[in-house]
């Protein structure tokens, strides 16, 4: 088991990017003709990199993730995900209520083509990874919000994708649970060596988690600025360095928002 994970981790470093977006635009048919939602987004996510996409309402964050996930097609430009279909985590846990926690993970394994005999062990290993070792037989409604998101994380990891897309996965959780899940996600990210593209509107969350923060402007979504976060992990959301960078980014974000009130 350990050897297979190791070789996979090595494979990952040989690909030069986990996702490559080149000049991606997306427009939808709106009440006043075609509406441009995303404008000329060019972005690389390196293997093993943790990138957060930050922006106010209307910046097209979720649209962008849908495009990368392959749920929708860009109007222009191209998206490459050499590691195959990315895994996607939603704000809602999106676990299937007719299956137990363990069976939710096994379904992902099954759809990935894992042979039946290996599924149970692998599902239990993944639950162990998110520290829910005893939850295999639990129904979704028997789990708390934080536990559901951890099972959802385990299910996303079951896809064994090189790229994990996260669409505000902790936005609906209480502050204490969210804080703990930040630690959890950092730990799992380092352990699995996956690349993460994490969408949020929470500046501190973005700085707490990422190696790189990408700020999107709104209507249409464009890349406004980028920051490399050099603060060493493990970080805390209360750390002075996190707070200082957050203040700087928030100023920039507010500037972007103000522009929309001026006309």
């Amino acid at each position, binding site marked *: 088991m350990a050897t297979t994970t190791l070789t996979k981790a090595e494979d990952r470093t040989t690909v030069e990017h986990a996702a490559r977006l080149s000049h991606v635009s997306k427009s939808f048919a709106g009440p006043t003709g075609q509406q441009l939602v995303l404008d000329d987004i060019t972005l690389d996510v390196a293997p093993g990199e943790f990138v957060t996409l930050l922006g106010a309402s209307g910046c097209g964050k979720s649209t962008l993730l849908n495009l990368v*996930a*392959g*749920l929708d097609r860009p109007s222009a430009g191209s998206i490459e995900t050499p590691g195959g*279909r*990315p*895994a*996607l985590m*939603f704000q*809602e846990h*999106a676990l*299937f*209520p*007719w*299956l137990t926690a363990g069976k939710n993970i096994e*379904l*992902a394994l099954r*759809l*990935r083509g894992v042979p039946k005999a290996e599924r149970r062990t692998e599902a239990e290993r993944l639950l*162990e*990874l998110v*520290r*829910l070792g005893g939850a295999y037989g639990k*129904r*979704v*409604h*028997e*789990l*708390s*919000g*934080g*536990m559901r998101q951890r099972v959802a994380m385990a*299910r996303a990891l079951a*896809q064994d994708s090189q790229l994990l897309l996260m669409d505000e996965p902790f936005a609906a959780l209480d502050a*204490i*649970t969210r804080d*703990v899940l930040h*630690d*959890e996600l950092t*730990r799992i990210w*380092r*352990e699995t060596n996956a690349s993460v593209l994490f969408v949020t509107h929470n500046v501190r969350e973005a700085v707490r988690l990422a190696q790189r923060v990408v700020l999107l402007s709104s209507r249409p979504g464009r890349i406004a600025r980028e920051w490399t976060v050099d603060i*060493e992990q*493990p970080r*805390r959301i209360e750390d002075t360095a996190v707070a200082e960078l957050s203040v700087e980014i928030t100023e920039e974000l507010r500037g972007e928002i103000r522009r929309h009130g001026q006309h």
Partner: protein
Amino acid sequence: MASTDITSDRKRPDGTAGPVDAKPDDLAGLEAGLDALDAVQIRRTPVREVLLRKVLPPAVAVALVLIVWELLVRAQVTEVYKLPPPSAVWDSAQDMWLKGTLLEVVWTSVSRGLLGFLLAVAIGTPLGLLVARVKLVRAAIGPILSGLQSLPSVAWVAPAVIWLGLNDQMMYAVILLGAVPSIANGLVSGVDQVPPLFLRAGRTLGATGIRGTWHIVLPAALPGYLAGLKQGWAFSWRSLMAAEIIASSPELGLGLGQLLENGRSNFDMPGVFLSILLILFVGIAIDLLIFSPLERWVLRSRGLLVKN
């Protein structure tokens, strides 16, 4: 354990270990504490409470109806041949029981009803899936299918007799025409109510096409489908009774509908009442024994059954 090798590198660079990073197992402990605090408690209702809340009220209601019935007879509101006392109906049942015909008559109808229902499920399910998933099919026959639901299945008895003759096939035809639209419509509304999030989640996991239908759409639509099945059974049973009452013939064997019809033609009011009660009883029994437990199990396992 996995946690020890990961937490080994969780020391802070500046050496000022914060409270959370102090011990390697702190995050695990914190998480276990949160899980314990947040865990949802599932309570099972004790048997005594079930008896008191679920069994007693309907039993009292039935007893009240019987008392009022008996009082009406004693008050002689009408002639006894029009309204027989409950005891006469009971005697009639006992008489049939002693002759050994009671269970036979009930079984003739129940077996027809269940077989017809199963056929209706076998036809209604793929039909419903087709209507739900294929836009063109929905546009073409969706409205007709909904319309058919409001057409009383008695209307089909006459053409069915002419086409198929007085036999079991005709009974099944009437059952199918009554039950298939309900079952198909139940599945359609079940599929329509599947949250789009499940479909998106399924697609990102690779469940598309047939695999998406099998792993995501069908299980997600199960509550609506079950409601359709329940209604489908009610329609099967009603259609069958209509067919049995209208098309009675010695070759068909004695079912509950014919029993009712025979009672009417012989001016045997206790027999008529007995038939009606038996028809009602079978309908309730099938629902209580099969559909209600099935529905409750599905809803409970999904956390959809709200308890007060």
